[in-house]
């Protein structure tokens, strides 16, 4: 790939596309991947709160788990998860399991 020349680049090294690190997925950084066992999740929000990558998302909807009904569900967007395991470490119900990535 040939990179753009000086005259084609915005002057002064200004980056004009906000949030463009999104182009760089960091899934490859992971050795372990977090798997949320939804049946054990009590919707405490802590994994979402602490994820350094902001890559645990809240889904709105109606979720029936056994006898309980929730209006929210937490899911990992794996594109950006670096596998740090903070979510699993902070989860009060041990609902998140760190599973080795198979290469």
């Amino acid at each position, binding site marked *: 790939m040939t990179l753009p020349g*000086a005259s084609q*680049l915005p*002057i*002064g*090294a*200004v980056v*004009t596309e906000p949030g463009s690190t999104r182009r760089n997925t960091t899934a490859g950084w992971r050795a372990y991947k977090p798997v949320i066992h939804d049946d054990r999740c009590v919707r405490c929000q802590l994994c979402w709160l602490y994820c350094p990558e902001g890559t645990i998302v809240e889904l709105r909807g109606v979720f029936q788990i056994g006898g309980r009904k929730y209006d929210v569900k937490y899911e990992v967007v794996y594109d950006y998860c670096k596998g740090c395991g903070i979510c699993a470490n902070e989860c009060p119900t041990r609902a998140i399991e760190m599973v080795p990535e198979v290469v």
Partner: protein
Amino acid sequence: MREALTSNYAAAYAVKAADVDVIAVYPITPQTTIVEKLSEFVSSGELDAELIHTESEHSALSAVLGAAAAGARVFTATSSQGLALAYEVLHIASAMRMPIVMATPARALSAPINIHNDYSDVMNMRDTGWVIYIASSAQEVYDTVIQGYRVAEGVNLPVAVAYDGFLMSHTLEPVELNDEGEVAKFLPRAARPHVLDPRRPVTFGPLVSPDWYYEFKYQQVTAMNEAREWVVKTDVEYGQWFGRSYGLVEGYLLEDADYVVVTYGGAAYGNARAAADLARERGVAAGVLRIRLYRPFPTGEVVKALSGVKTFAVLDRAIMFGSPAEGPLYKDVVLAMYLHGVDKPSLNVIHGIGQRAMYVRDIYKVFQALREGPGRGVMYMGVRP
């Protein structure tokens, strides 16, 4: 309107005329009276600007850089130690393409500490990517600061307007002041390519890898070449609007001169002209070439002016220790000539260091030396060896 002003006050009046938005400054002799005058203008309400009294020159330049990034028209001024302290930000300001205008009454650098004039401070910034003017009268300081905004905002580069500390910064001269309404029309607020605006967020100052860095340096090279055109164009238009223009270089008795002294700034130019007059009276075809635009260097103009002369001397007021010849302007002039295939015997004269008195007779002696022999080498004048 005509006023008797020092060059420092002339700079302050130009800043007022340019309706600058943000000023950040820190006092240092001989720049201080600019800060004082601007403080008066802001206190009296004559200038509607935010004036930031920073805690250092490093911060002053950083603050105007930030303000320029936010889209404001900005000004700062410093000399000597202050300029040296801000050195890191000089490079950053030009590389980030910030249209800052800075007045720089030139002063010797420590040690030993000396508040008087030479150009060691300004010459240290010659490779920092700034457009650098060296003015030779209070009128020219006033006109050049105003022109500087056009150039800075046109080509997105910072502009320094240097002149002799004390010898000009504190000396009264008559200055013709423009109608400020006309200046406002001469300096319309142009839209900047990128500013810090929450509605269109951009990132200034990223981390750049070897794959990209060189291209941004090359952009600066191109911008400097464009700056030369902007300086010419702005000067011509300024002349049409306000009746005064200067060119990139200024010649005195050059047309038929055999022996020429090349120099910059007020005192050296004044003395050199008087010495040329004296030499002419005694039958020597003497002339003077003054460099007004130091960066980007007016290579073509210099070569053209010197091609027909027998020999020339470059009078420098700064020292590049350990260099093949210690005068910074000398190096530029000789290189310019070499690149154009012109090889002439020439002298480098170092004088006025730390404001050592420069007399007309000294420069007259330079003309004599030029006439007596095809000199080559460096002549240290005025020093007790």
